[in-house]
C-alpha cells in the first residue's frame, strides 16, 4: 500500500506543475474535495436561511393567529398571505418545506457534505477522494435537488404540504390538498436527485476511508470525526435506497394509477379505483430511512464534537474505543427502531413492544457518549473557543432532548404525546439543535482550514450565547404545550378552548425564535466577512494533533506538497506526560519505549 501511495503522490506532483486551473474547473465544476466541501457548506447556509425565514413566518402565525404581518406578506404576497394573514394551506406547506430543507438539505447534505468532504482526505492523509468526479457529481446533484425544491415553492398549488414525512394518501391525492399537485411531484423529483447525490457521496466516503488511509493510519488511529462520518455514510447507503423506492412507488401511485399505498378512498364525491394498497406500507418504508436519518444527521455532529472537545480540553477523548463502540451500536440499532414512529398506526402491539425495547436500548450507547464527554472535560485544561462552546452546547441539548426521547420510546406513554408539540420539542432539541450546534462548532473550528482565514471570536461568542439561550427558549416551552395535548401542524389553536392556558407560551417561543434568527445574521456576516477580510490563519491555530493541520494554509490540489505524511500515533495525545508541548501531532514518531496510549 505504501508503494502505491508514493506512486500516486509522484503522479500528482507532476500534474500540478503542468496545468493552471480555470475559474470554472476551480470554483464551479471542481473535483477538489476541499472546494466541494465549501460548495456544500455555502449552499446549505443559503438553504438554512430559506428554512429559517419559513419558520419565522409560521411562528408569527402561531403566536398571533389571524393577524396580518408585513413580513409574511413580503415573502408570500397577496395570494398566500392576503393582507399579511397566512393561508392555512400555505401554513402546512411552510411547515413541510421547513422540515424537508432542514433535515435533508441542511443537516444531511450540508453537514455530511461539508465535513465529510473537507475532513476525510485531510484527516486520513489522502490526496483527494477516491473518485473526484463522482464527488463533483454528488455536489451537482445536490445543487439540482436544491433548485428543484426551491422551484416547487413557485408552482400554482404551492409546494408539498403533507408534512415532511409526506404520508399518502394526503401526499398522493391533489384533491385532498393543493400542495399535492405539481408541488408534490417536484418534491419527489428533488428527493430522488438528493438520494442520488447522497449515495454518490456516501459510497465515495466509504471507499476513501477504507482504501486511502495514509501509511500508519490504522482504523484504530482514525479521529472520531472520521469514524462518525464512516458510520453515517454506511447508514446512508443502506437506508436512502429504501426512501428512493418509497418515493418511486408514490410517484407511480400518483401518476400511473397503481395502488401501493392507496385503498378504499372516496374523495370529492368520487370513489377512486385504488384497491389493496396500504398507507402504512409507506410509513414503514419511510421510517426505515427516517430513523437512521436521525443518526445520519446526528453522528457527524457527535464526531465533530468529540474532536473539538478533546482538542480544546487539551485532554484525550475519554474512552476512545468506547466512543467507537457506541457509534457502532447506535448505527446498528438505528436500523431496528423505525417502528417507534408508528405505535398508533394500528401496528400489532407485540411488534410495538419489540420496537420499545430496541429503541430504549439506544439510550445506553448515547448515555455512554455523554458520560465520556463530561469525563473528558473533567480536569481538562479547557480553552473556550466558539467551537468549544458550541460543542458543550451540543452535549447539553443532547442530554435534554435524549431524555425526553425515553418517554416517546415508551409506547404506553407515547400514545398521549404522539404528534403533539412534545414531539416537536424533542426532535428539535435532540436532532435539530444538537446537529446544528455540531455544524457551527465544525465551521468555527475548521474555518481556518477551509478558507485560510480566522473568523472573529467575539462575534462567535455573541453568536453562541444568543443562539444557545434562544434554543432553549424556543424548544423548552414546547414540551409544555405538548403536554397540554396540543397537536403539531395546527394552523391555529383558537378553535380549542382547552389550549387557552398554554397558547401564551407560543408568544414567548416566537419572540425567542425571532431573536435566535437574528443571531444567525451575526454568524452569516462573520462567515462571509471573514472569508474575504478575516485575519490570515496560521497552519495549526488550535494546536491540534490531526493531519489536516500539517497541510499548508494555502489550499493546493493534492493537499500535501511533498510525500504524504506517515502516522505513528492516535490523534488524542493531548497533555501526554513527558512531552514538551501539550499536544503531539499524529506524524510525530513514537519515542523509544513510548506506549501508544
Amino acid at each position, binding site marked *: 500500500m505504501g508503494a502505491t501511495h508514493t506512486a500516486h503522490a509522484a503522479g500528482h506532483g507532476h500534474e500540478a506543475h503542468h496545468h493552471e486551473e480555470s475559474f470554472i474547473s476551480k470554483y464551479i465544476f471542481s473535483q477538489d474535495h476541499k472546494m466541494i466541501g465549501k460548495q456544500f457548506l455555502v449552499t446549505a447556509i443559503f438553504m438554512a436561511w430559506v428554512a429559517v425565514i419559513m419558520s419565522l413566518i409560521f411562528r408569527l402565525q402561531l403566536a398571533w393567529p389571524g393577524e396580518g404581518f408585513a413580513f409574511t406578506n413580503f415573502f408570500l404576497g397577496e395570494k398566500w398571505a392576503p393582507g399579511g394573514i397566512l393561508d392555512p394551506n400555505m401554513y402546512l406547506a411552510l411547515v413541510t418545506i421547513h422540515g424537508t430543507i432542514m433535515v435533508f438539505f441542511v443537516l444531511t447534505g450540508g453537514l455530511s457534505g461539508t465535513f465529510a468532504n473537507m475532513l476525510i482526505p485531510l484527516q486520513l492523509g489522502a490526496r483527494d477522494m477516491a473518485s473526484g468526479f463522482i464527488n463533483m457529481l454528488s455536489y451537482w446533484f445536490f445543487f439540482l435537488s436544491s433548485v428543484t425544491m426551491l422551484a416547487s415553492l413557485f408552482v400554482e398549488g404551492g409546494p408539498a404540504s403533507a408534512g415532511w414525512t409526506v404520508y399518502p394518501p394526503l401526499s398522493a391525492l391533489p384533491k385532498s390538498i393543493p400542495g399535492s399537485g405539481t408541488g408534490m411531484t417536484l418534491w419527489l423529483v428533488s428527493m430522488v436527485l438528493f438520494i442520488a447525490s447522497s449515495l454518490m457521496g456516501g459510497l465515495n466516503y466509504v471507499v476513501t476511508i477504507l482504501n486511502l488511509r495514509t501509511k500508519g493510519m490504522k482504523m484504530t488511529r482514525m479521529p472520531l470525526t472520521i469514524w462518525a462520518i464512516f458510520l453515517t455514510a454506511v447508514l446512508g447507503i443502506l437506508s436512502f435506497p429504501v426512501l428512493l423506492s418509497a418515493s418511486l412507488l408514490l410517484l407511480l401511485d400518483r401518476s400511473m394509477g397503481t395502488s401501493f399505498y392507496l385503498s378504499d378512498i372516496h374523495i370529492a364525491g368520487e370513489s377512486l379505483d385504488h384497491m389493496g394498497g396500504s398507507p402504512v406500507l409507506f410509513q414503514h418504508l419511510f421510517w426505515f430511512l427516517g430513523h437512521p436519518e436521525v443518526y445520519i444527521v446526528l453522528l457527524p455532529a457527535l464526531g465533530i464534537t468529540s474532536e473539538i472537545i478533546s482538542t480544546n480540553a487539551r485532554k484525550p477523548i475519554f474512552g476512545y474505543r468506547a466512543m467507537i463502540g457506541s457509534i457502532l451500536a447506535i448505527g446498528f440499532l438505528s436500523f431496528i427502531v423505525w417502528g417507534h414512529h408508528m405505535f398508533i398506526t394500528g401496528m400489532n402491539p407485540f411488534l410495538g413492544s419489540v420496537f420499545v425495547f430496541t429503541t430504549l436500548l439506544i439510550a445506553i450507547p448515547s448515555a455512554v457518549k455523554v458520560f465520556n464527554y463530561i469525563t473528558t472535560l473533567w480536569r481538562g485544561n479547557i480553552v473556550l473557543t466558539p467551537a468549544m462552546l458550541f460543542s458543550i452546547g451540543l452535549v447539553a441539548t443532547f442530554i435534554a432532548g435524549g431524555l425526553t426521547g425515553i418517554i416517546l420510546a415508551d409506547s404506553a406513554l407515547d400514545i398521549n404525546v404522539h404528534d403533539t408539540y412534545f414531539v416537536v420539542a424533542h426532535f428539535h432539541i435532540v436532532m435539530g439543535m444538537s446537529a446544528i450546534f455540531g455544524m457551527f462548532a465544525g465551521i468555527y473550528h475548521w474555518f481556518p482550514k477551509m478558507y485560510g482565514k480566522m473568523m472573529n471570536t467575539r462575534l462567535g461568542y455573541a453568536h453562541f450565547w444568543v443562539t444557545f439561550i434562544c434554543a432553549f427558549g424556543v424548544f423548552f416551552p414546547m414540551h409544555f404545550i405538548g403536554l397540554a395535548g396540543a397537536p403539531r401542524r395546527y394552523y391555529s389553536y383558537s378553535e380549542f378552548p382547552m389550549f387557552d392556558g398554554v397558547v401564551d407560551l407560543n408568544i414567548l417561543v416566537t419572540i425567542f425564535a425571532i431573536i435566535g434568527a437574528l443571531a444567525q445574521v451575526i454568524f452569516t456576516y462573520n462567515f462571509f466577512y471573514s472569508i474575504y477580510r478575516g485575519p490570515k490563519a496560521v497552519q495549526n491555530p*488550535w494546536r491540534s494533533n490531526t493531519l489536516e493541520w500539517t497541510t499548508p494554509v494555502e489550499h493546493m490540489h493534492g493537499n500535501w506538497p511533498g510525500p504524504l505524511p506517515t502516522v505513528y500515533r492516535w490523534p488524542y495525545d493531548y497533555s501526554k506526560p513527558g512531552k514538551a508541548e501539550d499536544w503531539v501531532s499524529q506524524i510525530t514518531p513514537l519515542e523509544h519505549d513510548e506506549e501508544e496510549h
Partner: protein
Amino acid sequence: MTKLLILIVVLLGILAVAQLARVYELTSRLRGKREEEISDGDNRFNGRMLWLFVPVYFAFFLWLVLAYKDKLLPVAASEHGVETDWLLDFNWWILIIVFVITNILLFWFAGKYLHDKNKRAFWQPHNNKLELAWTIAPAAVLAVIIIYGLQSWAKMTSPASPDAAVVELYARQFDWTARYPGADGGLGATDFRLINGTNPLGIVTQESISTRLAELDAEIHRTDSLLEHGILAPSKADELTESVGRMRRNATRIINLRTLMEQDIAEKGQASAYLHGADDIVIKEFHLPVRQEVKLLIRSQDVIHSVYLPHLRSQMNAVPGMTTTIKMVPTITTDSMRMITKNDAFDFILLCNKICGASHYNMQMPLVVTDAKSHEAWMTKAMEKPFQAPPTPAAPAASPADTTQVAPAVVAQAHTTN
C-alpha cells in the same frame, strides 16, 4: 410599517455589534494578539457564563413547571390513563434526576477547568471500570423503565372483552361521524363505493346498493350525453371521459358487491353483517357511558386522520382501507369533570392529530361521557332515527331470495323518502 422600522433598527443594531467586534479585533491585532489565542479574560468570562447558565436553565424549567402544571391536561378520565399518568410521573422523576446531575457536571467541569498555560490536563485516556459502570447503570434503569412500560402497554392493547360496547368513528376531511349498533346489537358491513349524501359511511344494504347504482346510472347517462352533444374543451372532455369510466367500473364493482352480499347472507343467514346495517345509528355526536369498557372501531374515508382523546390519554390513527381499534374505560363523566376543573364549559374533545389538510386544525367533536342511565336514554332516542327505516316493520329480511325481490320496492321507497 412600525414593524418594518423595528426590523431595520434591529438589523442596524446587529451591524453595530459586528462593527464594534471588528474594532476590537483591529486594536487587539495592533497589540500583536492573534485571533486564535483565547485570552484568559475571554476564557474566564465564558466559563462564568456557563456556570451562570445552569441556575438560569433550571429556574426557567422550574418556572415552566410551576406556572403551567395546572394548565396542562386535567386528571386522566380513563382507567388506563390513570396508570400511564402514574408511569409518566415515575419516568419524569428518573429523567429529572439524570437531567439535573448530568447538566451540573457538564457545566461545572466546563467552567472549572479553564486553561492555564502553566498547567497540564490530567492524562486519562480511559478507565474500563468507570466505563463499565456507566454502561451498566443506564442499562439497569432502562430495564426498569422498559418493564413497567411494556406491562402497561400489554394491558392497554390486549383485546377488548366480548361485552365491550362497540362504537365506530369515521373520519373524513374535516369532520367526524360516529356509528352505534342499532337494536340488533351489531354494526352492518360497509363499502366506500356506496358513500353518497344520504349514506355518509357507505353502509351496505339492499336499499343503499340500489340507490347508489341508480345514482351512478343517472350520472353516467348525463355525462355520456354531455360528451356526445355538448361543446367541451378537450381537457374537460378527457376529464369527463375518465370520470365516466371510473363510474362504470364502480357500478360493476357494486354489482359484484351485491352478489357477494347475497352469497354471504345465504351462507350465514341472520349472522351476516350485511343484514345489520339498516338499523345502525349514524350520528354526528359522540357519547360514551362511564365505567363501561368501550371498543372504538376507527376508519377513514379519504386520508389518514388520527383519533386523539387527550383527556382519556387515547390515540389511534384512522387509515383509509383498514379498521383500527382501541379500547378504553372512561372513568369520569363530563359533569364530574366540569366540577373537577371548575369549568362549566368543559368538554372532552376528540381532535384530529394527523395532518389531513387545510382545516386539520379544526377537525373536532366533543365527547360526552354520562352515567349508564343517561347513556341508555340517549341511545333510545337516537335509535328512533336509524340509518334506514326498516322496509316493513313486521317482516324482517328472512331469506336471501326474499331480499332480492324486495329490492325494487326498497328503491322506490328510498326515492320517495329522499
